[in-house]
């Protein structure tokens, strides 16, 4: 539903509200029109396995519950696969990342609550619409003042950046005299309203409905505005049989009533029991967070070891007498220190496969990014360490008749390592924290797991507090250990 650019709602008036009842009817009609039952499963896809990319957290379409991916999209694609006799492997990448992955053929299809738009139609082939969305407004549960757009005069409202909700809010803001602020995701928008920074939020109605059912502290006060439709997408001209199977399967689920059951499960379910306390959240989320922490530590350990090798190699290049080697090391350092880590991560995960045609898994891409980045800093640490040893030390060694290598090994390096160690420890901690940036390419480390959790339960503050505490504990334990080793070996 995000980033729809051609949504034209510039002149929506009260008359539109009257049309909404009709529009509601259209959903049923279009659904019926789409269901032209084809009795047999599509034999072309039978037994095949397709990799399907999706968003990380777009409840109720996709989110994690007890560590498992669930939601309308997930139930739908799995049931269609079962119906049509193929297998799906779901990759939870994030919305932008999933689209990138589809373009670079890292995934075969994407189902991610994605609006069907003309622009996207240029690069993707869309299935029949499987869900008709729309924008709805919600306010804090205890807010009795706002009951319609007319009450918004002089107030702030919040909407998701680049979404249909933002377009809609902007289209009526002059008429009703309010200000629109854009934020990146639903959970933070809801927090913004609850905190009183904004009085109302404009969001996709299914997302909002799900959130309200999860006791996110909001209530909806207007009817849904008619909006766009969601579709399943494949890369332009690729996997036509998968698209056909999706359409057939969707039609059959609609006929059999399974489709409606899935929607009801997520949108009509009664509110769950009141949320558990902080310690309930802690014990519920800890298994997923520990899994994330494990991946964080794995990526850190691999990256640091590789970065150390790179740093020593290029560090020696930097202090060598060869202009060529010094040049190579300088280019390496300036590239990886001169570009943001985030850009590097995107490049290795999405850019490189598009250039080479060779797909790359997220751990490899992540470790590649972190180790090359940290390696550049390590290079400078090694160079600085070696150069900070008094040149008189080298002269003394050489004047005794010792060669360059022996002098380095016995005289310079033991002193340089001692100087470098605190910087090494510092870099180690930086790299550990930098792993959190890999959440953007869908690497399921600690921060990513935290995002998954609060996207589903809307308890942003508490969840982030737990995540931060885990980082804090681990980093401080490792720092203490490193310092102890430093004292022991670098006396």
């Amino acid at each position, binding site marked *: 539903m995000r980033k729809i650019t051609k949504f034209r709602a510039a002149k929506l008036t009260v008359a539109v509200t009257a049309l909404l009842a009709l529009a509601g009817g259209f959903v049923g009609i279009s659904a019926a029109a789409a269901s032209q039952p084809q009795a047999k499963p599509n034999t072309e896809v039978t037994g095949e396995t397709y990799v399907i990319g999706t968003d990380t957290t777009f409840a109720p379409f996709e989110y994690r519950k007890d560590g498992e991916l669930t939601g309308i999209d997930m139930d739908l694609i799995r049931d269609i696969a079962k119906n049509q006799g193929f297998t799906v492997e779901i990759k939870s990448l994030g919305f932008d990342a999933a689209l990138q992955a589809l373009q670079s053929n890292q995934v075969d299809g994407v189902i991610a609550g994605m609006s069907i738009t003309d622009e996207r139609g240029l690069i993707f082939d869309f299935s029949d619409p499987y869900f008709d969305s729309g924008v709805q407004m919600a306010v804090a549960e205890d807010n009795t003042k706002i009951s319609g757009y007319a009450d918004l005069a002089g107030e702030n409202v919040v909407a998701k950046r680049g979404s249909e909700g933002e377009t809609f809010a902007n289209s009526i803001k002059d008429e009703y005299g309010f200000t629109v602020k854009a934020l990146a995701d639903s959970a933070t928008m809801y927090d913004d309203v609850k905190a009183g920074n904004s009085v109302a939020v404009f969001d996709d109605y299914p997302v909002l409905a799900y959130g309200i059912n999860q006791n996110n502290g909001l209530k909806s006060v207007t009817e849904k505005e008619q909006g766009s439709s969601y579709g399943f997408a494949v890369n332009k001209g690729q996997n036509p049989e998968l698209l056909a199977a999706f359409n057939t399967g969707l039609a059959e689920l609609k006929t059999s009533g399974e489709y409606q059951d899935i929607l009801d499960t997520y949108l009509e379910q009664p509110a769950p029991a009141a949320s558990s306390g902080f310690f309930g959240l802690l014990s519920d989320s800890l298994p997923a967070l520990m899994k994330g922490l494990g991946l964080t530590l794995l990526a850190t350990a691999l990256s640091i070891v590789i970065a150390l090798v790179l740093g020593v190699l290029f560090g020696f290049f930097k202090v060598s007498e060869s202009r060529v080697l010094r040049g190579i090391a300088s280019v390496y350092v300036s590239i990886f220190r001169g570009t943001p880590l985030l850009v590097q991560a995107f490049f290795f995960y999405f850019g490189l496969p598009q250039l080479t045609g060779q797909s790359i898994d997220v751990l490899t891409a992540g470790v590649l990014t972190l180790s090359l980045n940290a390696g550049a800093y390590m290079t400078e640490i090694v160079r600085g360490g070696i150069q900070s040893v008094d040149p008189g030390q080298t*002269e003394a060694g050489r*004047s*005794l008749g010792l060669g360059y290598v022996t002098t380095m090994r016995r005289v310079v390096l*033991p002193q340089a390592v001692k100087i470098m160690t605190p910087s090494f420890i510092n870099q180690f901690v930086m790299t550990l924290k930098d792993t959190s940036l890999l959440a953007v390419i869908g690497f399921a480390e600690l921060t990513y797991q935290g995002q998954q959790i609060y996207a589903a339960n809307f308890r942003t503050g508490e969840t982030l507090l737990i995540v931060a505490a885990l980082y804090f504990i681990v980093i401080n334990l490792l720092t203490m250990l490193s310092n102890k080793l430093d004292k022991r070996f670098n006396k």
Partner: protein
Amino acid sequence: MSKISVSKISVRGLRKSFGSNEVLKGLDVEIIEGEVVCVIGPSGSGKSTFLRCLNKLDELSAGTVIVDGFNLSDKTVDLNEVRQHIGMVFQHFNLFPHMTVLQNIMLAPVELKKESTADARASALKLLDRVGLADKATARPAQLSGGQKQRVAIARSLAVNPDIMLFDEATSALDPEMVGEVLQVIRDLAAEGMTMVVVTHEMGFAREVADRVIFMADGVIVEEGTPAELFGNPQQPRTQDFLSKVL
């Protein structure tokens, strides 16, 4: 002491520039075996650079330096081999701070496989005894006084059995009361017939120990002669001027 007239060090037309700054402007020096040559002169006259060209810690810009028969301007000469014949003592000692006194002295003989570890240790202890520091074998350089450090540095240079010793202002960084102990070690070496080039500001020491004194200024040798000649009857105005200031 008897001296055989064999040139240990032969310097011809030595020039040395750092960038566009020429610090040695054509030196010619012959030093024979067992000779003790003291080099004196004002700061910036090129004394230390001259010394560092003798074991090629500084590259030569022009001219030839022949040490113990090795031509240092020849690129194929194994410098590490040559340097084992030339010990060098620095103004700031340059002891290895991460090693004990004994390890400092044993490093080169063991790494160069001149001696087994056990032999190197025995030799090192003997050298320490010779410089009067037998009790400091296990100390770290940081625990020593300046004079002690410099005596260890001398012992370290002697450990590879050089037949030439270079001293680069070996007492300039010392507190006055420690100068004597270091000069005594150098004096002893001279008495044993070691060929030495000593860059120094200690005029009394130069007068006492040197066979020949070279006065340098602005990258050239202004005047040279026996201590009696140079200190007693300097010929050049610049020598007279310099000596009048330091004596």
